[in-house]
């Protein structure tokens, strides 16, 4: 069993993983029906294969095999592009030597083969740290505590960060001693289709001890290397914007509830609203480019709103599976989704309310404007003729409690993962 180092193992392991990764992998490999092509002559290209997966079984680490184990650091840097942080070591778990009890293996068995990797919180801090020279999109492993009381609950916390240090993925896996231990039945994984994770941390909390981090073992670390991410057509279109997004073509519209008689009875006049003209040719070009890149939106809830939308919808390609919910009407929509455990909203509209400002504001000539509040950070921009706003919500709606929520670079990174989606109504180019 320990000698399996093939993709087959990765796939079988993925099948055992949490639904999160199973869905993420599915998202990466499937072009969904939610991104129909404007040009039916184009056929869907095969999903862009990620680079070959890698498996580390910790069997071939050189060094003394007994006692406290072999310190892990850069033994897999050349072969797998990963360096382990302080506190990681490899232990011999098979009952071959008399001093097996001197290792951290509480039960003389590894998930595969004879060895497993351990993390010691005393020497390495609370979390095992893995830094990748070659970014990964999915990381999976078996995880085992080194001991516990019968029925005791544990939580494995996996976090993934991009090269900028921005958290892009997270997974919490809960299990119990001893039914989820000894035979290594517990898998933990994280990732997303377009994630480019340069650092992954793994931490195990023991709930019976105030959630204190405790030492643990992992075995058969599986890595899915991230594909080379070309800039998405949407991100490229946003980047091409120069200067303020001026309203070019738009027609005045009137709400069905703002008839002339009713308007005359108002104390104040109803605002003028305009409906913009969408650049459907540019949208079609973006859709075609996305197909060639096998780039698709993460599956979402709210298909009927997408079908009825008469504007191009921008949606995330690397949201946490199941986290995207869309509401809308033909001219506007709002999508909420999560990336790396953080909640975002994306609002889009082709209806503009004409309003006069009071004085000048900085940034009025920028193509993208950022607006911060106590609760969120929003980037406002225009592309394809419609207006959009991408918002990162602060944890507990407080930037004081969550200063990272105002990181503009992190918000821009999310914008770089947006794709354009057109529904049935949009294909008529209204």
């Amino acid at each position, binding site marked *: 069993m320990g000698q399996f180092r093939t993709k087959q193992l990765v796939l079988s392991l993925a099948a055992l993983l949490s639904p999160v990764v199973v869905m993420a992998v599915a998202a990466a490999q499937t072009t969904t029906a939610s991104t129909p092509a404007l040009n039916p002559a184009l056929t869907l290209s095969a999903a862009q294969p990620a680079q070959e997966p890698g498996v580390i079984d910790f069997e071939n680490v050189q060094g003394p095999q007994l006692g406290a184990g072999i310190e892990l650091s850069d033994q897999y840097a050349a072969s797998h592009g990963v360096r382990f942080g302080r506190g990681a070591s490899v232990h011999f778990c098979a009952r071959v030597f008399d001093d097996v009890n001197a290792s951290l293996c509480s039960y003389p068995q590894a998930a595969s083969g004879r060895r497993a990797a351990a993390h010691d919180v005393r020497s390495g801090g609370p979390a095992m740290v893995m830094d990748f020279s070659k970014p990964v999109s999915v990381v999976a492993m078996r995880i085992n505590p080194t001991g516990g009381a019968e029925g005791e609950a544990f939580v494995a916390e996996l976090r993934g960060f991009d090269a900028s240090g921005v958290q892009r993925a997270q997974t919490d896996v809960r299990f119990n001693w001893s039914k989820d231990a000894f035979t290594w039945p517990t898998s933990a994984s994280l990732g997303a289709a377009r994630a480019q994770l340069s650092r992954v941390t793994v931490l195990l909390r023991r709930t019976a001890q105030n959630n204190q981090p405790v030492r643990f073992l992992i075995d058969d670390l599986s890595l899915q290397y991230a594909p080379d991410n070309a800039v998405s057509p949407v991100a490229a279109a946003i980047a091409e914007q120069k200067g303020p*997004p001026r309203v070019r073509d738009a027609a005045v519209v009137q709400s069905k509830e703002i008839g002339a008689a009713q308007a005359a009875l108002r104390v104040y006049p109803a605002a003028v609203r305009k409906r913009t003209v969408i650049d459907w040719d540019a949208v079609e070009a973006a859709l075609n480019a996305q197909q060639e890149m096998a780039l698709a939106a993460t599956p979402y809830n709210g298909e009927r709103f997408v079908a009825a939308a008469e504007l191009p919808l921008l949606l995330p390609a690397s949201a946490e599976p199941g986290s995207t919910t869309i509401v809308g009407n033909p001219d506007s929509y709002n999508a909420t989704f999560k990336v790396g455990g953080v909640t975002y909203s994306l609002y889009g509209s082709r209806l503009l309310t004409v309003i*006069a400002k009071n004085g000048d504001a900085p940034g009025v000539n920028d193509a993208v404007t950022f607006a911060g509040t106590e609760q969120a950070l929003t980037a406002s921009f225009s592309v394809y003729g*419609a207006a959009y706003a991408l918002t990162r919500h602060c944890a507990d709606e*407080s930037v004081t409690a969550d200063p990272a929520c105002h990181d503009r670079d992190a918000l821009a990174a999310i914008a770089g993962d947006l794709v354009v989606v057109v529904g049935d109504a949009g294909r008529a180019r209204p």
Partner: protein
Amino acid sequence: MSQLLARFDKNWIGVAAIAFMLAACADDAGVTPDPDPDPDPDPVVVDPALPADWQNPPGDLLAGSSTTHGSTGVTDASVVAPFMRFPFEEGPAFANSQIFGQGGGGYGGGAWPAPGGSENDAANFDYAWRDNFCEARTNPAKHTNALCDGGLGHNGQDIRPATCENAVHWLVAPEDGHISWVGSISVNVFGAESGYIYKHLHMQTPLPGWVEVGAPVTKGQRIARVSDRLSSSSRATTVHLHFEIHGSAEIDGVMRTGPLPPYSSLVEAYMDLVADNPDQIDPVAPPADITKCTEPQWP
């Protein structure tokens, strides 16, 4: 219907328009009896009986309370959401400044002082309404507003409910639509008619499962209660609703998405509310037990 009739005496143009329409109908009626007479009773003009000058005009902030120490906010009086229902289930309600009202803390460490007093002062729960969109806020990281002079200012309108009682007064959906966000102290509604996002802050959010993102709501449906929360663990503000209308706008020919001035829309919606509920106009006496203003009253 009664909402419209209640407006007949507000505006000469409206009266003239209705008179014109009635005259046109009378011409037809002179030769052919109406085969489908209006089942409604004879129109009765309902006077909301709001006090004279019950609302200051849009953009007329408290003296010195703007970010530039002036008193001018967004003076464009356009009603951005004429289809909106007033966000409180019941009146009376009082749109005014929190931080510059009685008991408010002012702003900027004394640079914009407050009058002192108590949050529960009767003056806070009385007319006249006052716009506070673009009110002084100077932290560029937290208070960006492209419509305000200098690009900084309050992003919404503060509204006090009838009394200072915490987590008692109901917030209702301003339009048919869907819940688009539920935070620890906020509930947002996507308006199906307008396409706007209505943001409601400082809410005692409903129990889990009551409303959730994607859930449909109908105009007037209860969605949360008004509280004094700044976060899930902080109750450091007054009992009030911070109300925002977010949408895309054309501002000097440029397309932007963000907060729109809500004051004039609230004026219209409030007149609709009290026209149908004339018993909900007058200020009410504060609660005898003032602790109700500080203790949560949930459910």
